[in-house]
């Protein structure tokens, strides 16, 4: 694609360090170069991501709504059949808005894996669980915790969580949940804030669950379109995401708990929280950009200023991550890569076998692919924000184009940090 041809003649070339990327964005492209290899990689990984995500969102909602405040939640990952069958609001015939043409209940590959695991043998659920031969729900919880912890990025949502109305709603739910349990009720009397804090966390479970309920069908549909030959370039993949973001932007974010068959509206839909503002944007900021350093991957010396004192300056997310330590036991990136490994499309497996150490470092290879794909998702978010808050790319007004340029440069400034991988993903040899 010839970037300069689309550039308005009234705007001089960008002098930004990543001017190439800026020009590409201004031409409606992605931060990721438009190559067939990149397209294959990101679509393949979206599909591999969507299957465990189909479990993540179901289980997140199951925990937020059903497990609730169970003090010994040993079986919180043993999702009920009802939640496995729960129709996704964006797939199937009864969808609010049908994004994926597939079915609304749990993905068949997911069901198959849940039954047999890596062993490929039907064994008791408990055995698969203890052997860790299952979907690594811990990754989803790590994402949720990142959103919970970086509280400054979701001001309206958090203001509500700190308000009296939320307190009253949770109080009702807590009392109902522990009805007939004098021990827990007594504890609640002694430490009400502790319980409230737990409910807040559960509200973030719901938040993230509702967010991912959208993303899973989006990724499935992209994979299907690619397989059908209808998605042929990286910008097309990005535009699909942009349209998806707009289409579901107004989806309500809420938290309902079901206790004894009764629904407790802890965050009612009427509060007006939306998917875009209270879930998607905070998620991107918390998980793609910030998160927190993972234990066991690197030592940081806080006294030497190696960990920023301000949470805003945290940059440990997937866009910055050193993917090489993937494989170290128990860290969230390993958990996710392990989950995606089970659902890779054949064309990606073949691709990986021909590079690096083949099967041996496949987790890192797919981790880097995942990093690429998330640069594309972030590009979609940047373009969506540009469309929502600024001007069309072909706007005739040079001031508007200048504003767009400024916005893009501001966004890309965040990747000037040495640990950012924007420069790496420009090159196919980074794998």
């Amino acid at each position, binding site marked *: 694609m010839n970037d300069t041809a689309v550039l308005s003649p009234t705007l001089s070339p960008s002098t930004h360090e990543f001017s190439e990327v800026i020009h590409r964005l201004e031409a409606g492209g992605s931060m990721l170069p438009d190559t067939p290899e990149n397209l294959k990689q990101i679509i393949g990984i979206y599909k591999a991501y969507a299957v465990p995500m189909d479990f993540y969102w179901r289980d997140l909602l199951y925990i937020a709504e059903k497990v609730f405040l169970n003090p010994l939640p040993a079986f919180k990952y043993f999702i009920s059949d009802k939640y496995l069958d729960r129709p996704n609001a964006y797939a199937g015939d009864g969808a609010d808005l049908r994004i994926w043409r597939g079915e609304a209940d749990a993905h068949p590959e997911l069901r198959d894996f849940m039954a047999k695991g890596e062993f490929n043998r039907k064994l008791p659920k408990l055995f698969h669980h203890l052997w860790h031969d299952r979907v690594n729900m811990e990754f989803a919880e790590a994402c949720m915790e990142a959103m919970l912890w970086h509280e400054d990025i979701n001001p309206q949502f958090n203001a509500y969580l700190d308000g009296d109305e939320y307190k009253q709603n949770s109080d009702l739910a807590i009392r109902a949940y522990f009805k007939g349990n004098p021990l827990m009720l007594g504890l609640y009397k002694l430490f009400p804030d502790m319980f409230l804090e737990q409910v807040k966390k559960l509200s973030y479970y719901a938040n993230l669950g509702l967010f991912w309920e959208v993303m899973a069908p989006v990724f499935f549909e992209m994979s299907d379109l690619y397989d059908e030959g209808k998605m042929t370039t990286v910008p097309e993949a990005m535009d699909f995401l942009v349209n998806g973001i707009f289409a579901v932007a107004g989806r309500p974010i809420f938290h309902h708990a079901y206790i004894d068959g009764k629904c407790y509206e802890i965050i009612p839909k009427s509060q007006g929280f939306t998917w875009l503002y209270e879930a998607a944007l905070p998620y991107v900021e918390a998980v793609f950009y910030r998160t927190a350093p993972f234990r066991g991957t690197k030592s940081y010396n806080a006294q030497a200023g190696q960990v920023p004192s301000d949470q805003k300056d945290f940059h440990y997310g997937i866009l910055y991550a050193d993917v090489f330590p993937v494989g170290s036991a128990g860290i969230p990136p390993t958990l996710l890569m392990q989950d995606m490994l089970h659902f890779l499309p054949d064309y990606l497996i073949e691709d990986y076998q021909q590079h690096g150490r083949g099967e041996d470092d496949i987790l*890192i290879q797919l981790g880097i692919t995942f990093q690429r794909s998330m640069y594309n998702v972030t590009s979609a978010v940047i373009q969506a924000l540009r469309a929502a808050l600024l001007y069309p790319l072909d706007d005739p007004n040079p001031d508007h184009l200048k504003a767009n340029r400024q916005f893009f440069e501001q966004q890309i400034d965040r990747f000037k940090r040495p640990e950012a991988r924007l420069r790496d993903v420009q090159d196919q040899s980074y794998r």
Partner: protein
Amino acid sequence: MLSTLVWLPIIGSLLIAFVPFKLTAQQSRTFALVISGVVLLWTIRLFTQFDLTNDAFQMHEFMPWLPMLGLNYDLALDGLSLMMIALNSLLTWVALYSSVGSMERPRFFYALILFVSGGVAGAFLAQNLLLFFLLFEIELVPLYLLVSIWGGEKRDYAATKFLLYTALAGVLILTAFLGTAWLGHSTDFSYQQMLQVDLALPTQVVLLSLLLVGFGIKIPLVPFHTWLPDTYVAASPSVAILLGGVLAKLGTYGIFRFGLGMFPEAWSLLSPFLAVWAAASVLYGSVTAIAQKDIKRMVAYSSIGHMGYVMLGGAAFTELSMVGAISQMVSHGLILALLFHLVGVVEAKVGTRQLDQLNGLMNPLRGLPVVSALLVLSGMASAGIPGLVGFITEFLVFQGSYSVFPVQTLLCVVGTGLTAVYFVILINRTCFGRLDNQKAHYGKVSLTEQVPALVLATLVVVLGLQPNWLVHWSAATSRSLVAAVPMTHEVQVAIQPPFQGF
């Protein structure tokens, strides 16, 4: 029985070198491995035949050769020789296994290694001083070739330096041997006869000094060590394993067998200086190792330090320290071979040995995790962490020598502390930290490449947990060696020697 150990490798070597049909590198390697495997099995058989209660030489094999020169083919075995033979057989196999199949002139390479192995085995078994000297000198040429043809940077310089030093050592040793025979009016160079020679103490001291310098170059001890770092570093990993693991032992073996064995009175006189010399070597080797930036050079300097413990044990010549010294020779051989092998793998995969470039090799998927783990293990073994063979042998040496030379022993103990320092530096820089995303596309370490290290590591752990399997072989020999030396000091042993009940 014993001749097999000498002649099988040499015949194998000649076969590889001269069979008229074409041999690929892989075939020569396999053939050499089969030969050395048979030798290894033969060595194991030797262990089953070895009489533990007999403190004299066993399994004599004698054949007149040039009786008028006093040179006869005379082999025999005691506990000291047995340990050295075992080390030689094992490390030859390891060295062959860890060689890369793709090299120039592979047939010549494998022939030379087998030849060295056979020659060294002969030297360890020789009961005739001239025979020993012959075999000692003869391995020089193949080693010179091994370093100068298949070495790394500066190989010619290193090989020449090695040749010059070792040749000088040979001259000194020969002088001492001839002096002993002529001054003692011996017609024969057989070891047993030499033991009978009765010389005045000053003469003994001179002859012993010649031997000490000669073998001191071979070990090497400071200040005769300067050939070592160059040669070890320039040599390919397989050759470095042989050089550090086996050849260096020829030096300490020679000092114990001929120096201590033939001149016990002089030995007793010189022993305080020997202990100081040993401590100086230990400290010098360790401190210099800390300053190195090249991991192979670091390991090479560590070898100087660790051979110092052997000398300390010999200088103290208590029964315990003697067993410790002999066992330390074995454990040093195992650990050094392990280290050189691992460093070789790291260099082959990463392409550098520089501490400031190595990083993050512990990375589970893109690094060399098994190699890194073994490197940590061997560093621990070398630093004398309990539970590993290095601890046992060093502890035996210190326990045995403390009562005799407390100050020197304590200095050597400081040396083990310094060992921990440089190995922590090595391991920290090499294994830990962040793997460089741009550069770290290293090849995979195959199981084949790990086998030698796994074998050695297993021995290091097993012998560390069950030291009796190592020490009891040389107990009787140590006892008889020590008994020959007049006691000039009261020996105090804090604990009973552990090797009596097996």
